[in-house]
């Protein structure tokens, strides 16, 4: 009995005539050539895959939404625990003093929020490549979509912790001012910085596997090179300009200004630094696009 016979005997629903192929697709001949030069950043191509991006973001959202209550509990507990640990460690034992009269706990959380955005986006970008490698040998799409989509998780955490912090500030009777309008700008800045680092690292990681090993350590180092557990005034005056080259310093001070009205309001320097971060993120895209084409061969 041939396959055709089997179908005659039991007409399945898919037996209905297929729609004629769309005429516009048929003519296009795609040429795959050796040693093709790569130009540009591929933004146009990513745009044609926007439905996939939306689909993947939707997937991440649904996956978070469908999580058990326990998972939600951990999502909130994790940053809270970190905060409590650092508060005890640096305020009670280390006697770090910001000298502002604001409880250390709040000074810390205002800094931890952008830091978490940055580190989550960076790590997420690198792991998104490793964890989706099953696609690489099978189906083509711009791989850059994966790191971009991995931002979702960080954004969810950002919104969650921000709401919690605001509620806590309100409960403690701290003033909430119009300064808060700059929060989205600084959050975006942190995301772009994380993406820039993440794209570079993910790309290089494909060629140099050592990156993955060093990554956790480097991120930890970044944590202590940013004014999270100590005020930036603790850095000696003559190193302060050098210290401000770290974009995280600007981002964290911006968050502190927005939530706690501490320090100076954002100024032109911040805008310039933001512009530079944008350029850095673009350079990450540039590098990633050139390296992504060997992913299937090396991962």
């Amino acid at each position, binding site marked *: 009995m041939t396959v*055709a016979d089997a179908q005659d005997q039991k007409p399945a*629903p898919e037996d209905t005539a297929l729609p004629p192929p769309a005429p516009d697709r048929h003519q296009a001949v*795609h040429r795959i050539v050796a040693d093709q030069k790569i130009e540009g950043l591929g933004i146009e191509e990513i745009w044609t895959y926007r439905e*996939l991006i939306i*689909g993947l973001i939707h*997937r991440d959202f649904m996956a978070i939404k469908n999580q058990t209550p326990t998972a939600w509990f951990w999502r909130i507990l994790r940053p809270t625990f970190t905060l409590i640990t650092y508060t005890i460690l640096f305020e009670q034992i280390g006697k770090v003093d910001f000298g502002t009269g604001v409880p250390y706990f709040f000074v810390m959380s205002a800094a931890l929020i952008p830091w978490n955005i940055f580190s989550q986006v960076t790590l997420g970008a690198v792991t998104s490549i490793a964890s989706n490698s099953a696609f690489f040998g099978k189906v083509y799409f711009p791989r850059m979509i994966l790191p971009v989509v991995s931002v979702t998780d960080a954004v969810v955490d950002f919104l969650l912790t921000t709401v919690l912090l605001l509620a806590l500030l309100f409960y403690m009777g701290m003033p909430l001012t119009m300064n808060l309008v700059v929060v989205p700008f600084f959050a975006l800045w942190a995301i772009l910085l994380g993406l820039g680092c993440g794209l570079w690292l993910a790309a290089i990681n494909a060629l140099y596997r050592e990156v993955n090993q060093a990554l956790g350590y480097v991120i930890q180092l970044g944590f202590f090179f940013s004014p999270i557990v100590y005020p930036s005034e603790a850095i000696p005056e003559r190193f302060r300009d050098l210290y401000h080259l770290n974009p995280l310093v600007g981002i964290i001070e911006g968050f502190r200004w927005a939530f706690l009205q501490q320090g100076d309001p954002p100024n032109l320097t911040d805008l310039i630094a933001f512009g530079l971060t944008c350029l850095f993120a673009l350079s990450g895209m540039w590098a990633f696009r050139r390296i992504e084409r060997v992913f299937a061969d090396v991962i």
Partner: protein
Amino acid sequence: MTKFAVRTEKLGKMYYLGALSEQQYSGYDILGFNLPMRRLWPILFNDRQLDPNNEKAFWALRDLDLEVRPGELVGVVGKNGSGKSTLLKILARVTEPSAGFAEVTGQVGSLLEVGTGFHPELTGRQNVYLNGSIMGMTSEQITRRFDEIIDFAEVERFIDTPVKHYSSGMYMRLAFSVAAHMECDILIVDEVLAVGDFQFQKKCLARIEKEVKSGKTVLFVSHNTSMIMQVCTRCVLFEGGRIIEDGLPQAIVESYISRSSPVHFDRSFEEDTAPTSEEHTFRLRAFRVIDAEGSPKAHFDVKEPVIIEMRWDILSSRYPFDVNITVRHESGVTVFTSLDNKDAPWQGQPPKEGQYTARCTIPPNFLNEGLFMVDFTISTRVRATEYATCPDAGSFYVVDDMKNEGVRGDWNGKWFTSVLRPQLHWTHFEPTMLPVTKQST
């Protein structure tokens, strides 16, 4: 309208053997030290120069010229590492060729490994949309075919259940169904039908055949040669990164099988390596495929008998025994098993020690054309563990000289695809002398 669906010219793909860190790009050495950026730099600045003379260079695919016309269903066979998957990867654009070029007309779709891209927390419906968009479908296209996809996968009732609760069968059916309903012009099926029950495999094959009828081109990689013979209209055989044969599936599959396991028609076993039973009661010694004159050969005409000759040693007169042969077709179908019990002179008694020979005759006009393999086994019914066996002890071809004799009669064309071609008796009745049948009154 172009005349080809896929065309490649001098297509090649080179890899460097060995660890990635040992890959060499010339021009990034200083005093014999490789600069750390020697891997990064050439890729970032489009300056990759593969060195084919490097001793570690390995061509997974080389000088491949292939043209596939629209609507062809091409089976791709070859050993592992012969370049099949590399070709498909290049066509799917997941890896780049190192030499030559390929052209594809229209959109290429790959049948993903089952469940790739499925998220366990999402419902069937959400996964269909997600998986579809990974494969390049728009949500509008998916919506249009959604009911078809669900019907085909037979999961209507569970479509809004997270797929982590699916049985593995449902999971797999849904995954295949999404891929099979992709709107593409060239479909790549790389060894994904191995899973799934027989019914569903059949349904998948039917689906693929239907897609081909509607104008799709399919490249079908499988180690299941019977599937290839069943559905493909053409077959190519890969070896060492090149296509070495291209033609009708039947012929190519035969050639593939005979290349991978050479035809043995005259075989003897050395005493120390011969298949021997656990308690050293039986030992196989020789196996031959011979014709009526007694001379061993590989090719038999459909009209002549095939004689299987076996020789074995009885090392101790302990158990009564049975000799049997199992004949299998190249497609994997077991044609028959034959047991010597009715004709054996010892009739259930333990025989004396010594060397025995037996012949089994497969009658003429019985097997159809093709390659047949024979397993040779001696066993006893007294102890289940006491047997000596040699799978694929020998093999032979049955061929047809197309003369109008035997079963063929005056039929001139190619005979039909089946494992057997037996001589059967037909009785006809003239209109005036109908056979007596019971009439209902």
